[in-house]
């Protein structure tokens, strides 16, 4: 099954109700099952430069890498998807960092990142900062990334509960970002993918303004029409105040997409056997 036919991908962004600039950036490459979302920050208008660089560089470089070699192939004990994501994120980090160091108007810029590649009935997700990826499966919404933020660390340390975190005044502090240091430590995970799943990548402008239950209801009600669903999510964020830029990428899994035979892996064989 061709990945481009197995997935329906829709993206939408808005600068929100308060900001004049949109520092979010998104990029999708349906032929590779690749989606990238970044939320820029720092000095004047440099945030949009950082997020724009991140999505453009990662989008085109990963497209090249995954067109040349299928992401499911193993190299040692790691998949090509993981190896390439890590390598390209490191290169992108260097590009943004060097631009920020060499040009005064870009000083201090950085960006969050959430980047996912779908292949062989799996998805590999890399993220840095507080942009998120959610999965709606059988009516249940789950956040499959964990923010790199002060709040999330406080929750992990047991200082505050997730409910109290909604009322915190420290929402906007991330502990990791792309392009602010010479090196970066992205978090990578693999997840299995089932037909019927709906994935949502979003900037914090969505989840700060719309509670998870409402996101889940919207996904459940409107997954039959992804463009309407994306507009509705953006509309909900803006109706609730829209204090930040808000961007969403929605991915609906219409059918299974095992890797092409020939490059079969234990995973695809196991999958074929399970779904026989």
């Amino acid at each position, binding site marked *: 099954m061709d990945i481009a036919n197995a997935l329906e991908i829709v993206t939408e962004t808005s600068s929100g109700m308060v*900001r004049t600039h949109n520092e979010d950036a998104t990029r999708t490459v349906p032929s590779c099952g690749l989606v990238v979302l970044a939320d820029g920050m720092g000095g004047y208008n440099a945030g949009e430069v950082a997020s724009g660089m991140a999505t453009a560089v990662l989008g085109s470089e990963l497209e090249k890498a995954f067109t040349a070699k299928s992401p499911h192939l193993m190299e040692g004990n790691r998949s090509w998807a993981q190896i390439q994501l890590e390598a390209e994120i490191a290169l992108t980090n260097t590009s943004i960092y060097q631009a920020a160091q060499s040009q005064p*108007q870009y000083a201090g810029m*950085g960006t969050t990142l959430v980047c996912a590649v779908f292949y062989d009935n799996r998805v590999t997700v890399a993220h840095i900062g507080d942009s998120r990826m959610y999965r709606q499966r059988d009516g249940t919404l789950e956040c499959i990334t964990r923010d790199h933020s002060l709040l999330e660390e406080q929750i992990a340390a047991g200082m*505050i509960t997730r409910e109290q975190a*909604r009322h915190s005044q420290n929402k906007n502090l*991330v502990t990791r970002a792309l392009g602010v240091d010479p090196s970066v430590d992205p978090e990578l995970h693999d997840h299995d993918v089932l037909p019927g799943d709906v994935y949502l990548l979003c900037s914090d402008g969505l989840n*700060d303004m719309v509670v998870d239950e409402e996101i889940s*209801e919207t996904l459940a009600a409107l997954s039959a029409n992804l463009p*309407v669903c994306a507009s509705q999510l953006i509309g909900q964020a803006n109706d609730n105040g829209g204090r*930040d830029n808000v961007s969403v990428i929605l991915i609906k899994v219409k059918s299974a997409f095992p890797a092409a035979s020939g490059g079969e892996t234990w995973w695809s064989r196991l999958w074929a056997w399970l779904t026989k």
Partner: protein
Amino acid sequence: MAKLILSMDNLQLKDIALNKERTTIGRKPHNDIQIDNLAISGEHAVVITILNDSFLEDIGSTNGTFVNGQAVKKHFLQNGDTIELGKYRLKYVNDAPPPSAAPDFERTMILRPGQVVRPAEGVSDEPKPTPTPVQAPVAPPPPPPPSTAQAPVGAIKVLTGGNAGKELELTKSLTTLGKPGVQVAVIARRPLGYFITHVEGATFPIVNGVSLDAQPRKLIDHDIVELAGTKMEFFVKS
């Protein structure tokens, strides 16, 4: 910046700015907030402030620490909370920033590992284009509840078919109508009213005899909606 206002018998005694990571409260003189009263333990409680958030913790006092009438061991302070220690009251005030600070106050910022976490220094600091320690901006109050709560409630009354006469109140933010796989439309409840949008199916809903396009359409009192062969009326409940 957040502060505590100390009072007794409704008489304001003093303001204490929460500008330290730990602000101690107790009877002994070494406390940041010393309350010389026998009902107060020597070391009674501590307020831990991390940037714009403050936490109150009772540190084993004899008579306990109360917030808004409830005994607490540990409490995440919210603007307006009243801490009670014996006959004394400490009101927690964490004001919203002035509107002039609005454009920049909630920008996402990087907090570096090892960076000293210290209380907010106020909103006067301009964001600086340097990667060195970041001034914490003062955030606005939590988002207001969705304003749909105040908008008048609409409802749908079925006019034809087996369910004729039935009414459905549109209290949820999204109400889907129709048959999945055949024809589905959604009515979204928004601050400006109700909007109907086509979701799936080859035929689009018809409102007052006119077929919808892909755009949402605002529903007005007594609009007639036709969907999957059924007519219904939208109306606003008084």
